[in-house]
């Protein structure tokens, strides 16, 4: 094979240009490409956070009758729940947002490039279908949870500062607020929740959506939702059971029941090492990840065969 050596010797650029680009670099650029194209991945969570902060600020205004979230007047003699409440709400709100953003991202990820024929451009470059699909899958599994974690953290930080400023202005004791909020615990819990639940536990959802996105000719949202719904209905009519619906609900519900946190992650739960161990040894998690791998492999294969629409 003289092709490679010829090509290298006739290359007019600088010396030592790598002829093989490592997977990590192709993956890195593929992920950056996704972030360039889908700015909603971070803009939507930021917009939701900004709206919440605005509401929080209005709630703080002593002249306002709106009491969203933390109100320093009502805190006397109350338990830590009252302090935590708005912090929990913003976290839940942003998690819900993330889930929706992930849904729309995944459904568009492999469908849009066929619709606008840009797949012909991407395929003209030495980036394999596997690299591309893995980069796209990493967005909801890895990057969106991290983006959300950072957004929640920053938002909660701003809320804390806002509350402190208001309380200081009123001559109240700020230490009360700070000591009642288990900041470190909350952040740790949030981080674990985002990575474990939104990343890994929900991964089969993302895999399925990406598969539908690679397969559907039109209306991927419909194809993503209808077949599971039909299965659930048929099962109900035929056998009068609802195992499939329960399975989806169990997956969506958040986590293995044994692990002591569910959708309300900010509640009193304290993250212990045994929780982490329990989560990572749960067969449900690994079944889900195996299913995700199957979905993604199918998506890779479809992308290889599919032509632009």
């Amino acid at each position, binding site marked *: 094979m003289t092709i490679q050596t010829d090509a290298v010797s006739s290359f007019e*650029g600088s010396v030592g240009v790598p002829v093989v680009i490592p997977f990590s670099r192709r993956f890195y650029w593929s992920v950056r490409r996704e972030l360039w194209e889908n700015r909603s991945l971070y803009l939507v969570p930021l917009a939701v956070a900004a709206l919440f902060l605005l509401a929080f600020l209005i709630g703080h205004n002593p002249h306002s009758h709106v009491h969203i979230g933390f109100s320093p007047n009502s805190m006397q003699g109350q338990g830590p729940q009252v302090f935590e409440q708005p912090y929990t709400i913003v976290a839940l709100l942003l998690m819900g947002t993330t889930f929706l953003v992930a849904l729309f991202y995944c459904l568009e990820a492999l469908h849009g490039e066929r619709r*606008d024929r840009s*797949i012909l451009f991407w395929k003209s470059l*030495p980036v394999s279908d596997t690299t591309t699909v893995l980069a796209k899958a990493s967005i909801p599994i890895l990057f969106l949870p991290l983006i959300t974690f950072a957004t929640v953290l920053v938002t909660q930080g701003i809320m804390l500062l806002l509350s402190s400023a208001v309380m200081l202005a009123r001559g109240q004791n700020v230490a009360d607020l700070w000591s009642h909020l288990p900041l470190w615990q909350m952040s740790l819990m949030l981080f674990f929740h985002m990575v474990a639940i939104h990343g890994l536990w929900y991964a089969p959802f993302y895999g399925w959506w990406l598969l539908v996105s690679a397969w559907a000719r039109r209306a991927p949202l419909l194809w993503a939702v209808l077949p599971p719904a039909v299965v659930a209905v048929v099962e109900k009519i035929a056998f009068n059971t609802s195992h499939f619906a329960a399975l989806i609900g169990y997956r969506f519900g958040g986590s293995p029941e044994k692990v002591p946190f569910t959708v309300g992650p900010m509640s009193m739960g304290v993250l212990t090492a045994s929780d982490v161990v329990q989560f990572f040894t749960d067969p449900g998690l690994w079944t889900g990840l195996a299913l995700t791998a199957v979905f993604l492999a199918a998506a890779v294969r479809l992308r290889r065969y599919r*032509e632009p629409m």
Partner: protein
Amino acid sequence: MACIEAHGLRKAFGQKIALDGIDLQVEEGRILGLIGPNGAGKTTALNAILGLTPYQGQLKVLGREPWSDRDRLMCDVCFISDVAVLPRWIKVSQALDYVAGVHPRFDRAKAEAFLAKTTIHRNSKVRELSKGMVAQLHLALVMAIDAKLLVLDEPTLGLDILYRKQFYDSLLNDYFDRSRTILLTTHQVEEIEHVLTDVVFINRGRIVFNRTIEEMESRYLEVSVRPEQLAAARALKPIYEREVLGRSILLFDHVDRRQLGAFGEVRTAGIADLFVAIIENQNSKGAA
């Protein structure tokens, strides 16, 4: 080693046969025009060569099998499939960054130098560029890649004549050298005539004509025959006859130029005329 080698290349979509046993050999350093009517199998052939579609039969591109070895092949092969496949959201600078990031043979300085000659701004998004500018951008990206084979499928479709001319001029002057191979399809046959070294006509999934340009020009002659000599000219068995402004124009294969000169004005047949002659002959034969 040949750049492209195909033996009995076949491809069917259900009942419809797109490629019906193609044999083709393209040597390094050639510029081959693949010309055929709509639905003849041009794009299918290119897709097979680019590893975008599975096929039957034997096919080697730069010594690799395109379908099974696609990822590695794409380091040495570049293509512009159709116009306007650059994603509309991408910025010019991002496109440069991305290709520089993933392509081992991309020379960014070369692409920048080419873009500097255009009015394209680094911060523009593709959707803000005119069709001609998008084609320029794509060409800038592709020409900066030190590839062995460049495949162009209707690269100038929908562009005005100025852009089209510029496109092929850049390709020839700034890109092509004897070590590269270019394979292209287009319907604007006349415009690429002076660009090509080889011509292949494809019809109904088969190759019906495969010649170098020199061979073509020395073999095929057209004569605008004077009416009184029509019968004599026809006796020499023209392969095609057409009428232009009341004059019969006869196309001959392998007939001596001096002999034809007696009937009227002789000129070398253009690709377009030859194409029409060969495809129409074939289609009427097929219909009979």
